[in-house]
């Protein structure tokens, strides 16, 4: 079962605005490791080589915060989604 399919089972309430902001300059010039791609349990980070930028599909965020901890260069600014938004666990 693909991780995208698993995320599709969850209940999400998606905000128009992302709760994750990425400083692309740091991703381009400073970061050589891209830990965010490996650590995210939702597999939401990918690097778009064409546009030379890090992309995050914030709508599928499980709100664990692992990327925030793993981004040692400080490119990721991560806050909780606003009240009324984000993942809503029905089991937890």
């Amino acid at each position, binding site marked *: *079962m693909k*991780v995208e399919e*698993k*995320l599709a*089972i*969850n209940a999400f*309430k998606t905000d128009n605005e992302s709760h994750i902001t990425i400083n692309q300059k740091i991703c381009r010039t400073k970061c050589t*490791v891209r*830990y965010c*791609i*490996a*650590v*995210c*349990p*939702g*597999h939401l980070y990918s690097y778009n080589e064409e546009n030379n930028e890090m992309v995050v599909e914030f709508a599928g965020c*499980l*709100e*664990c*915060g*692992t990327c*925030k*901890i*793993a981004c*040692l260069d400080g490119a990721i600014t991560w*806050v*909780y*989604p*606003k*009240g*009324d938004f*984000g*993942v*809503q*666990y*029905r*089991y*937890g």
Partner: protein
Amino acid sequence: MEKIDVVIVGAGLSGLACAYKLAEKDMQVIVVERGDFPGSKNVTGGRLYIMPIEKMAGDMLEGAPFERKIVRERWSLLGDENSLGIDLTSEKFRKENHSFSILRATFDRWLADKLMEKGVFVIPKYRVDDLRWENGMVVGVKAGEEEIYAHVVVAADGVLSFMGEKAGLRPKMSPQNYAIGIKEIIELPEQKINDRFNVETGEGVAHLFLGDVTKGLFGGGFLYTNKESVSLGVVVGIKALMESKQNIEAHTLMDMFKNRYELRTLIQDGSVSEYSAHVIPEGGFNGISKLYGNGILLTGDAAGFALNMGVTVRGMEFAMASGIVAAETIIQAKEANDFSEKSLACYETKLKETFVLKDLETCKAMPAFLDNESFFTFYPKCFSDLVEKIMWFDEGPKAGIGKTAWNHMRSSGMIGWKRLMELYRIKNL
């Protein structure tokens, strides 16, 4: 500005337990929660050990929606293509109320409802953005344009505790001190769970896995039976994952785990109904943050109250106990009408008298001891291979069992200084 007694950020177990005890003393309390309902942003493995908190909780847990009483404890060491297990059954575990599997969306919501019946406001969909300060004291919280002022703010806002950070009580989170837990809820009929896990109705299993589940990285797998589902997951150290030379992506561990023979038969025909993830504190005693400041207390995961004991992991009873102790502290502070850091310092003193800080301190050498790849590669493989060799009978003459064991232990490196040192170090745990 009008102040209430206490505002609690986060309607998880520590926040709710704290509010419950404050409400018993008729304190004015508001609990704010960013999720749609309490529990909707929470994830547990998981099980709750109730004996440590039974006395201090009073009637708090009466009527709690437990999933199953855990009566079997299983551990499996996973080699690449074999595994070796231990399965504890005990009439003692069956007779006593020792530990229960729970689901947070059900459990926390139930506890919050019980609180609201006591007249406590639990406000959902409320994300706190910042603290309010006055003369160096925390005096409330701010959410958008709204503000709530209180004598004490309880930061019960979980492992990422933005409030603890804003209060300057928590250092920057280091990958070494945290793990990521990834979990699936797999639904199965109640009777099928009873049959597959060899338990009676209402009874359940806790099963931990070590070894190939994390491909040798710090961490392990877990399975807890719920009433009509199993909670199946993988925990892996964030630092270990970052430094992994195999370029493992966290989400792939889950599927590799599920595809193992040992798991396939247990979850066959089950349907996945949720995929969740949460960060877990792994720093133990040395990972605890500063617990109090002027007008603020940290509880539960926000304070770092979680304990990986190797053979089991504990957190929720630590959360509830710390919430209860925080409430006692606040009640005293109100009597003295002093909410300063100095007055709230007895929170730590009180916690030292409970299992919360006692058990964490007892196990303070555990994180360093477990930070050893031997436990995640060498031992699981070595023991499984040993038993596999002993139990294998083919056309050739069978070598003596003792000799087989001895040769395996020598060639695998089971006998040597490194192992002896690891054995010697268990005396510190």
